[in-house]
């Protein structure tokens, strides 16, 4: 787990695509890179990226794990942060962040419990929690409203000379990097690669998978806080769209759906790609009806690319087995 350039790495296609689309945005409208445009752009991209990150970890743990509840959970946290907590007079950063992350952890534990101990297929288990969270959000917040406490300008505004959201990215990246230093990353890749091998080798596969869902929950709740900061309010419908984008982002990021391969770098690129496509179309005034066509086509292209690189990898392995 050392930081060396790996030419075979899964994330190169994603980064390449990212570079291209970034340039395309710049061409479509040079304002795109102007300094005062960074903040809104990054704030816009944040939910795409962070929810994709959230989705990545369970998918890396394989065995069909995925978390359909990331979007709705983000929505729920958004509602609670902007409506419930202020009504309880809890608007200081500490309690808000702890409670939000607490909800994320709880949700992760619930999903993990359902998937690993009750052993409901992940797609169904998280479909259940997804519906539940959406319902709860509507109970908490029947209509858009609420407000973000002033301190959230740290995220939505500029802080220390850069858009505050950048710090959110940095903190998550650093934590993930630190996690990579621990045994967890190896355990995660093992469980994702072949759960039977991991189990017989003595890995606590249940714990590994639950933690994966907890990480997803925490990142989703971070997204919820970002929503609150960006919108300065809460909207019960804000989370739902990010279920499918997060899955698409993971695919664009070159993370293997079979598990065992991936990381946050590719996922970030994948999530950002979705935002950039979207942004490009609105900048270029291309009729919005074609955005979705572009989404789908690019997604398919990415899948094709990944599977080709995969096949090359596999052929190398096969040759070795001669």
């Amino acid at each position, binding site marked *: 787990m050392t930081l060396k350039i790996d030419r075979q790495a899964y994330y190169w296609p994603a980064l390449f695509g990212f570079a291209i689309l970034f340039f395309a945005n710049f061409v479509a409208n040079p304002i795109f890179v102007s300094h005062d445009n960074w903040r809104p752009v990054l704030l816009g991209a944040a939910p795409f990226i962070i929810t994709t990150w959230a989705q990545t970890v369970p998918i890396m743990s394989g065995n069909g794990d995925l978390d359909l509840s990331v979007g709705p959970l983000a929505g729920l946290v958004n509602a609670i942060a902007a409506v419930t907590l202020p009504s309880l007079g809890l608007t200081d950063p500490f309690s808000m962040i702890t409670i939000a992350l607490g909800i994320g952890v709880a949700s992760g534990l619930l999903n993990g419990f359902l998937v690993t101990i009750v052993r409901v297929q992940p797609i169904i288990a998280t479909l259940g929690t997804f519906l539940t969270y959406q319902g709860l959000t509507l109970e908490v917040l029947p209509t858009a409203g609420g407000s973000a406490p002033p301190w959230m300008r740290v995220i939505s505004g500029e802080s220390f000379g850069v858009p505050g959201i950048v710090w959110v990215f940095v903190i998550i990246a650093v934590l993930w990097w630190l996690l990579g230093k*621990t*045994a*967890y990353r*190896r*355990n995660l*890749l*093992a469980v994702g*690669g*072949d759960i*039977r*091998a*991991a*189990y*017989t*080798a*003595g*890995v*606590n596969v249940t*714990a*590994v998978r639950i*933690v994966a869902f907890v990480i997803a929950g925490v990142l989703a709740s971070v997204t919820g806080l970002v929503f609150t900061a960006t919108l300065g309010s809460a909207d019960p419908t804000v989370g739902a769209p990010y279920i499918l984008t997060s899955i698409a982002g993971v695919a664009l990021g070159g993370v293997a759906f079979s598990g*065992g*391969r991936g990381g946050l770098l590719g996922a970030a690129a994948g999530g950002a790609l979705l935002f950039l496509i979207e942004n490009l179309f609105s900048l270029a005034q291309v009729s919005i009806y074609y955005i979705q066509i572009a989404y789908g086509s690019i997604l398919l292209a990415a899948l094709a690319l990944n599977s080709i690189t995969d096949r090359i*990898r596999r052929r*190398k*392995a*096969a040759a*070795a*087995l*001669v």
Partner: protein
Amino acid sequence: MSVAATNHLSAEATAPAPIASFRALRRNFGETIALADCSFAIEPGEIHALVGENGSGKSTLIKILSGILPQSGGELVWNGQVANFDNPRAAQKAGIATVFQETLVLDQLSVRDNVVLGLDHLFRRVLSNAEETRLVRQALDTIGMATLGTETPVAALSLAQRQGVTIARALLRPWRLLVLDESTSALDVDARDRLFEALRRFRAEGRSILFVSHRMDEILDIADRSTVLRSGRSVATLTRGQTSTETLLELMSTHEEAEAAEGAVAAKIRRAIGAPVFEAKRVAIRAESAAFDLTVRAGEIVGIAGLEGHGQVAFIEAIAGLRRPARGAVETERGAVTSFGNAARAGIAYLPRERKTEGIFAPLSVLDNLTIAALRRFSHFGLLAEARRRAEGARLIKQSHVVAPGLTAPVAALSGGNQQKVFLGRQLALRPRALVLNDPMRGVDLGAKQDIYKILEQFASDGGAVLLLSTELAELCLLCDRVAVFHNHALFAVIGRESLDAQALIAAMFGQAAAAGRQL
């Protein structure tokens, strides 16, 4: 954990009390009883062999011992106390390291990651990278694989090397009892000898080994005592003096089977050799390796031998159309073999090596598993002529000596050996002119082996051609008219029946031309 710790363990392990003992151990899955009544003890500092046919309960016993399955009844006494291991980790903590029959490795991860896997806690790592590398080297060295790069991804490893990794994984644990479940099947002769040396050293240190194998020679070679399981019961534990192939066969098999075995060994019908069924012409397995010819005729059984990773697997896969050789072509009278599909049309049926992952459809019925490859034969416009399909199924069951509760029973309910026969029956259902078999007897119990021998003999004498890759030399000597031995990704020698024996094969496998009585 480091070597110091293991020494410390072995020091106290010299107490006389048995390290592990089983008292009337029992396990059942629903109605099916996998382990009926198993009682024996493993002393400190002994190599204890566990013999028995597939389905006799060996694997179940090992799963209980290594914390994968809880027992349904009876006691497992470990180091003086009654123990119930909730999971493999608990068993390892107690000092039991197991190498399972299946080579459970992770392709994406490096050799080092694969070997140390499971030592860590959820987050906390117990070893630094440097220590890990050192210990992994050490462990690999004990089985003569010190040359293996610790950072190479396992995806690039040969099957033998992969099994080496699993063994190293077990050796790295601080163990007092090492369990080897059919773990040597993929190892080549050299690696296996190195392993056995190591086992003897461990025994000298006062540590114990529970050793499962279907190879009598291995058991007679290193086992101090042997416990025989038959249909879930421990029928006897023999000391080294008492152990002999005959007694073991006697004990583990019901009498008919034992006789059948001798029968088959005795039987050596001469078959009429007919026209070529397929010919490998100027075939080279790798671009740089030498090209060669090999012709297989109707009515003959041609063996394929070689040390693991010397190209023999690639060769039979080329015959089956699964891969293209670097140069040359495989000719049949119905044209050249270029794909798996047209190999079938040319009458070549292929039996893959891994029954579990490449063969059996567990939830499906015996009938489905037998006929799935030949369904088209029974279909009118996509609909199945069920009566004809069942008739064919019944015929195949007879032809391949399958013992099954019925055609509609799920194949998962069958013993490993019978599943293997169903798998072979599926190939026969294709009515092929040639059978290409990739180690069909691997990890199959004696009874099933005898049946498979009969099937092959029958197939050949009915005018079919058989290309049989096997890692068991005795078997090759027993069955084959000729054995093609591979060395360095090329055909090294073809040994005819007259000069066919284990020594000749081994010599050829190690590339000693003179000794092999080489003839090409």
